[in-house]
């Protein structure tokens, strides 16, 4: 049995929009185990990004309990949340979010600089196949290359989990597959937990577990005994 990494119970998130209160999450139970690749699937507006931001310690739930080991994130201070993000979580976004003024190497270094046990940056660059692009700026890289830099950056601080928000959302099929393959490899080789949120059902075929989100609630959870490899996925 895999070890529990995160356990969240009855997570609710409210947004006050003037007079109206919008519920992004209405009571989500969510668990994450070590070394698994989880896909959170749901239509847009179902609360996927909100959930990811709460898991990643960027946002706080309005209600609910949320444990990372003994660490109770719901009651954590700002500073504790910052440390949690710094050392335990790597984020990957649809639009890469690289610093435009920093080179590929420097972008990765930025995250390694502040982490407690960073990985070797040049080694990571080699693994994502971008050693040659080390000193290029994001604007000089293709979307797929930028996303691979972002993955290396997420991994550089040697976190327990990688949280990916539509990582292939703005990539062509080939680049998308390449990115998914990297995520699968890092999950297996580095024993990281990888969470991918997407509305693309194809991607869920390569997951160990699929969480279906609908209207701010978990619709169902499926365990996939024989996940496909990234190369077998297509859309």
């Amino acid at each position, binding site marked *: 049995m895999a070890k529990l990494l995160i356990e969240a119970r009855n997570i609710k998130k409210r947004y006050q929009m003037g007079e109206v209160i919008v519920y992004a999450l209405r009571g989500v139970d969510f668990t994450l185990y070590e070394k698994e690749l989880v896909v959170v699937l749901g239509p847009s507006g179902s609360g996927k990004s909100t959930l990811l931001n709460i898991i990643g310690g*960027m946002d706080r739930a309005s209600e609910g309990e949320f444990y990372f080991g003994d660490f109770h994130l719901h009651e954590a201070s700002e500073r504790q949340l910052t440390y949690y993000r710094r050392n335990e979580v790597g984020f990957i976004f649809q639009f890469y*979010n690289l610093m435009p003024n920093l080179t590929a190497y420097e972008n990765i270094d930025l995250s390694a*600089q502040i982490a407690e046990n960073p990985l070797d940056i040049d080694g990571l660059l080699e693994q994502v196949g971008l050693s040659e692009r080390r000193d290029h700026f994001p604007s000089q890289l293709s979307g797929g290359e930028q996303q691979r830099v972002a993955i290396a950056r997420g991994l550089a601080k040697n976190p327990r989990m990688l949280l990916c928000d539509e990582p292939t959302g703005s990539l062509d099929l080939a680049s998308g597959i390449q990115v998914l393959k990297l995520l699968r490899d890092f999950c297996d080789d580095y024993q990281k937990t990888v969470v991918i949120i997407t509305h693309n059902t194809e991607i869920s075929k390569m997951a160990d577990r699929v969480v279906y989100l609908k209207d701010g609630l978990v619709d169902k959870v499926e365990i996939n005994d024989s996940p496909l490899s990234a190369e077998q996925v297509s859309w």
Partner: protein
Amino acid sequence: MHIRSLFYFIGEALKSIARNGWMSVASIAVVAITLLILGSFMVLNYNVTLITEDVKEQVQIVLYVDEEASGEDRLKLQQKLVGHPQMEEVRFVSRDEALERLKRQLGDRSYLVEGYEGEDNPLRDSYELRTKIPEDIAIVAGEIKEYPGVDYVDYGSGVVEPLFQFTGVVRWMGLIFMAGLAVTAVFLIAHTIRLTVYIRRKEIMIMKYVGATDWFIRWPFVFEGLILGFIGAVIPIIIIYYGYNTAVAWAQTNIYFVSLVSPEDIIEEMVKVLLPLGVILGVLGSSISVRRFLKV
């Protein structure tokens, strides 16, 4: 702060300045222009002050003693002058001394007053008086005119009063102008900061996702502002120094009777005032802009 971090922050700041290109130039320009105008007014103000002080030094009342005055009256007059509460300096100039002076002033043509020594001296005994506060000169002159043994009193009215009025007006206008300038500068800088917002907000957001503490995010911006403000202050200092040197050189050949503040004193003042001001403006500007976007 670790030394390693310090270098990291300064390095980040320098990189950001270089790579933000025209935004950095714009920020430097805003600070430089503001400080250039401020510095120019300071230079003007220093000189007006110096000239005013100079004139004040020279402002004096000359009191001519009545030729007919008795010894007793003369003694009383001296006592009253010395005892006057607003009097700074009382100097007696005897008619002999006055004649000597006149001879010296005439120089080559001193033969003109030849033979007027002793009993034939047409000049009168006088007092040269300076008041504690130069601006009081008219009032004091009016009072002592009534003393016994006074023939008449002369204090260059018609010159002194308008001059004091003029320098007063220049000062006030300078102050009002500087206040207006400060407000304009704040607007200009705030505007420049708003322009950097778009890029900055994304960068700060990324830093937060990466797990940087607020201070880690803030420091490079603070250093960036510091460096931009510093450069923005050095430029006007250099311009003012060379500009002022040229102005002084011109003044010395054309209006030599006016004494101006030396360029060395000016540069010292500029460094003391403009440099810290530039650095403060820069740091304040960048701190405010990050502060607003740390709360994303």
